[in-house]
Structure formats: C-alpha cells, structure tokens
C-alpha cells in the first residue's frame, strides 16, 4: 500500500503534466486527451482525501461524459491542427499577466500560516462516503440540488435550440 503522501505526489504530477499539455498541444484532440489525464489525476487526489464517491463521479462524468462530448464536437467539426500561433506582443503580455496571477495566488497560499498547521483533523464527525454526501445533499443543500436540476434541464433546452438544424422557413 502506498503512503498517502506518495500517492499525493504521483497524482499531482499526473494532473499538472496533463494541464501543461492541455494548454500547449496544438491539436485540440491532443489537448482533450491530456485533459482526461488531468481529470484522472484530480480523481486520484480526491481518493487520497477520502472522497471516494467524488472520485468516481469525476471519472464518470468528467473524464467520461464531458470529454466524450468534447471529442465528439472536435471530430464532428473535423478540425485540422492549426498553424503555429506564434508569440505576438499581445500574447506575450497575456502570458506574463497570467503567470503573474498564478504567482499572486499560489505564493500567498504557499506561505499562509493558517494552512501550514499540521494536518490533524479534529476527529471528523463523518467521512465523505456516499451516505454522508447524500445526507448533506438532501438536507443542508436541498435547494441548490433542486436548482441544479433546473439548470441541467434548461441547458439542455438551450443546447437543442442552438444546435438543431435550421427549419426550412427559418430566416435570419
């Protein structure tokens, strides 16, 4: 059995390598496949945190359903690998700004005293098992749960409206 820290290191490296490749691969299909890697890495991290249910959902919904949708659209549009995007002044500035944001978020968090306290959970009253999550979902977060159902429905309606083929009499 791996120690928890080793598992953390392995999964984080997977997630980060995947992320770097998502944003650097030129072909969107490659990017999408690397994104699957990231999702799997994050799912592993969930497991190390004891959130088994979420890890499973992450694999099924994200890595499974969502990514299939992505790949489906990419292949449907039959996109070729785009030409090299090059490094213009504007892109350089964007890159710099984005890296600065990263630093401004990651560095303070890395040094935050409140986060460096030894990881001794105050004897958790419950874990993140399916039963516990369900308990939270249907009591404390009952309203958001209902809202999400409407959200999914309306997203479906909207997607159908946008993507269905134009009717014959439809005008601009």
């Amino acid at each position, binding site marked *: 059995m791996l120690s928890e820290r080793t598992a953390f290191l392995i999964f984080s490296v997977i997630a980060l390598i995947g992320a770097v490749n998502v944003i650097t691969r030129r072909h969107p299909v490659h990017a999408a496949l690397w994104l699957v890697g990231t999702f799997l890495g994050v799912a592993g991290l969930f497991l190390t945190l004891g959130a088994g249910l979420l890890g499973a959902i992450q694999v099924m919904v994200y890595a499974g359903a969502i990514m299939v949708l992505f790949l489906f659209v990419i292949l449907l549009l039959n996109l070729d690998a785009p030409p090299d995007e090059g490094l213009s002044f*504007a*892109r350089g500035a*964007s890159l710099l*700004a984005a890296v600065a*944001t990263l630093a*401004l*978020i990651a560095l*303070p968090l890395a040094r935050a005293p409140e986060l460096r306290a030894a990881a001794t959970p105050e004897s958790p009253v419950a874990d993140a098992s399916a039963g516990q999550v369900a308990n939270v979902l249907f009591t404390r977060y009952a309203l958001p749960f209902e809202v999400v159902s409407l959200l999914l429905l309306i997203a479906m309606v909207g997607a159908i409206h946008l993507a269905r083929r134009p009717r014959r009499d439809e005008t601009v």
Partner: protein
Amino acid sequence: MSTVGALLLGLPLAAATLIGILHRRLSTRTAGTLAFAMAATCFGLAVAAFTHLRGLPEDARHVAATFWSFLELGRGDAALTLDVGVWLDPLSVTWALFITGVGSLIFLYSISYMEHEAGGARYFACLCLFLFSMLTLVLGKNLFLTFLGWEGVGLCSYLLIGFEYGKETAAQAGRKAFLVNRIGDVGFLLGMFWTWKLFGTLEHGELTPKLAAGLAAGIALPPLLALCYFVGACGKSAQLPLFVWLPDAMAGPTPVSALIHAATMVTAGIYLLCRLSSLFVAADWALDVVAFTGAATALFAGLIALRQRDIKRVLAYSTVSQLGYMFLACGLGAFASSAFHVVTHAFFKALLFLGSGAVIHALHGEQDLWKMGGLKHHLPKTAFAMRIGAFALAGIAPFAGFFSKDEILGVAFARAYAGDPACWVLWGAGVLTAALTAFYSARMITLCFDGSSRLDAHSHPHEAPAPMAIPLNVLAVLSLVGGIGLGFEALHWLPLHHWLAPTLAPLDLPPLPGALLWGLMTLAFLIAVLFWRIGAKWYSGDCEPARAAELTFPRFAGALAGRFFVDEIYGALIVRPLRFLAALALQFDVRVVDGAARGLGQFAALVGTGVRIVQNGTVQRYAFWMVAGAIALLWLALG
C-alpha cells in the same frame, strides 16, 4: 401668501406645459400672448408679495410655505429631509420682481420678434419653462430647490441657445454652455452636501441661525465650503475662467440673450452669494477670492469688448464685465450694492439687447458693427433708447448704472481708505474698467447710429412695430430713473439697501465722509464722460473700418490733442499698454475660447484611438484586461 407663492411657480409651469403640448396647433402670436399674460400676472403676484412683506415688521419679513414633502433619504442621524415650498423674503422677492417685470417686457417684445420664425410656440414654451425654473431658483425654500432651479435654467438656456433648428454654431454653443455650467454645478452640489453635513439643514430660513449658533460655539467654517458655492456661481455668472460660454451663447435669439444671458439667469450666481452672504463673511479668505476674481473678470472682459465687431458680442463681454463688478461688490462685503447693480443692470442691459435686437431685426440679421452706421436717421426711436441704455452702462449721471457702479467703486475706495492696501488694486481695476466701459459703449453707439451709413445699398431699415417699441420705452425710462430711485448714497437715500438689510450680512465699514463721497462721484462722472467723448470722437465721421479697427496711437492722440497737452505721456502710459492688452485679449478670445473647442476635439480623437485598441473585438484582449484587473485586485487585497 402661500397661494401667491404656489401661483408664482404654478402659472409658468402650467403655461409651459400647455404651450408645449399644443405647440403645433398654436400660432406664435397666440402662444406669445398667453405667455405674456402669464408673465404679467406673475409680476402682479410678485408685487402683491412685496406689499405683503412691506406690511410686516422689519425683523419678521419672511413667509415660508411648504407644498409637499419631496423626499426623505436615510434614517436617524443620516436623514436628509427636503420639502417643496417657497421662501419669500426681501431678497427673493426683489429678484422675483425684476425677473417677472423685465421678463414680461421681453415676452411682449418676443411676440413680434419671433413672428416670422418657425416654431415660435415651442420657443415660448421654453421661455415659460425658463421663467418657472428661474422663479424656483430664487423662491425655493431650500438650497436643494435652488439647485433644481439652477439646473433648470441651465437646461432652458441650452434649449433656447440652440433654438434655431439646424444651425450648427448654435448647437455647439448650447452644448458648451451646458458643459461649462455643469462644472460649476458640481461645485454647488459639493457645497450643498458639505453644508448639510456641517449644519444638518439646507433650509434658507434655518441656515443663517444655525450658522450663527455654530460660529458662537466656535466651529471653524472651512473657506473651501464657500469656494464650492463660488465655483458654482462662477459657472452660472460667467466669471473667470468659466466665462467662455457666455459670448458664444449669443448665437441664440436676441430676446433670449436679453432675458437669460443679461438680465436674469446670469445673476443667479450673485443671488447665491447674497443668499449665503453670512456663510461667505464667516469663511475667512473666501471673500478675497471673490473680490479679486470679480475685479479681474471686469477688467479682462472690458478689454476684450474693445475690439469686438459683432454688436451682440460687445454686449456679451460687457455683461461679463458688469457681472465682475457685482462679484467685486460681494467680495468687498457690500452685498446690497451688488444687488443694486444687479437690478439696474437688468434694466439697461435688457434695454441694450432689445435695442440691438431691433437693429438686427431692421437689418435682416446683420450683426457686424462695421456694416451699420448712420442708423439714427432710420431708427430714431431705437437710437434714442439705446443711447440711454449706453449712458447707463457707461456710468454717466443721472442714468441708472452711474449710481450702482459708483457705489461699488466707493466701497472699494472706502476699504482701501480704511487701511486695506490690496483694495487700492481693486479700486484701480474698477476705475479702469469704468473708463473702458465708457469707451466701448460710445464706440458701439457711434459705430451703429452715428456717422455715415455703411449699409448695403438695397437695405431699407425701418422702425420696429409697437410691441417691440413699448418694452424699449419702458426700459429706457427705468434706465433713466431706476438708479436714483433705488439708491443715492451721498444723499443717504438707500431704500433698496434698507429693504434688503434683514436678509444680507451687514457691511462692516465706516461710511466715508460726505465730501469724499461727492468727490469720488465727480471723479467717476468725469472719467465716464471723458472716455465717452474719446470713444465717440474716435469712431465718428467716415470712419474707415480697416484703420479704425486698430487702436493706433496717432489717431488716439489726435483725438485727444485738441483738448489736452499731455498726449505724449498719455500715449506712453496708457495707450500703448492698452493696445497691448487689447491685442492680448483678442488673442485670448480667438485662441483660448475657440481653442477650447478644438482641444476637446483632439481629446476625443485620442479617446477614440484608445477605445479602438482596448476594444478590438477579440475574446483574448478582453480576457487580458480581466486578468490585469484580477492582478490589481489581488495585489491590493494582499496589501
């Protein structure tokens, strides 16, 4: 009395609404008659209010009436309650009297003047709305209502300047007027909030007692507070450096110039200063700023007026200059003298504008003084009335302007005499401006009415019809007797001052000895007559435009040579500097006043380029700005 107050505000509003709704059905004459009847009724109401107040004991001469509670913002300590209502006291009634009085005359005049213009009914609707706003400004029972009126008159002025549909200069002038005024309004608004924060009230009736109580309790009144109001007053009353809008505002119809840009609206700044006189007096050095700004404006605008060719621009700059006198008086603490000059100025400047309107009307729109001349043969009545107005403006006794202006100069002198050396400068500037005023008044009259005709060959000017002549005659009479009737300091005949005394901060100045007073008066009279003669002589005869347009030294000296033997010294000391200053002032008019418009254009172009770069239509560019914003927020959050 509250009925009178309600009617004073309600009638103009009702008339404006009625004419505004029916403006397509009503003829100019019907709309004008209706508006005039309304204005005349308002004048009657103002007189009624005046007699009512006269009947009250001197220290109880005020009537407050609340119509409804306008709004209540916040709760508890932070609450601000504002009512809609009127506040009648000597100060507001005085203003209401001349606004409605001069206003009705100008309404009457407009009926004929606008008869052949398109959209006359719309014009009268705007005019009624203006009257409503102006009366709200002076009669409103708190500073907030005054501010509403203040904004309202600005809006009406904007609408009326740009009245002539499709005239691009007029539209631009209207915009400029509104924008510059808005800068002043920001000052007013800031002052109002600050006042509310300090005293917890904006009511005219409560402010002065609370201020007195506060001063007694030892609070220090920040001079900046007074300056906020002063900035507002500068915008509305066209003082340096916010005066740039007024000369351009002459693009509107001439009766509008007479009513709004000479007699009433531009004196709103003086009204504000008088209304807050106790605040200004308590605010340390604020009054000095007022005095020096006023003197500088008076002198500066007087200089610019020397070289204007457009008859209305001469009058516009002279208005700015006279307003400078009024500010000077306020700055010296003589608020009553300032109000006195406001009233006489309303008479003679309205007269001059209406007269010039008659001239322009007769010449079918010609405004260039160099294309006039000899008009006294064609328009004898107008010429006579205008001459009276010009005498009053020049400060020649016994015309109205003489008494009020002399009083202001007297106060400046008395302050200097009492040991304030800076006031010698103010007095000097005032006297110099008086000389300039006499000179350009004479120049205008001479170029317009005397000498030989420079008119187009086929132009046949004719005298204005009766509805235009009657207001001219009435105003001419007022310009003749309005001064001596309201105040003659040397004879201790000061009815206006006594009437206003309960509402204004008193003047803390020992009176000058009688002999000195008479001496100063004689001096002012002599200066006015002398410079009138010089101006008249110089521009009379077959004045050749190209040469006469220049303030050439030999010609100036030649005009003087017959009488005086000091021409050389005179030339070196006065004429050369004068010529230099006048040239400078002309450059200012051309470069700064017109340049401001160009500068705005360049600024706008710069903004356009900036927007195109930032808003280039790509998601990446927008995301970049979002990330930049996130960086800034994170940076600030992490301190």
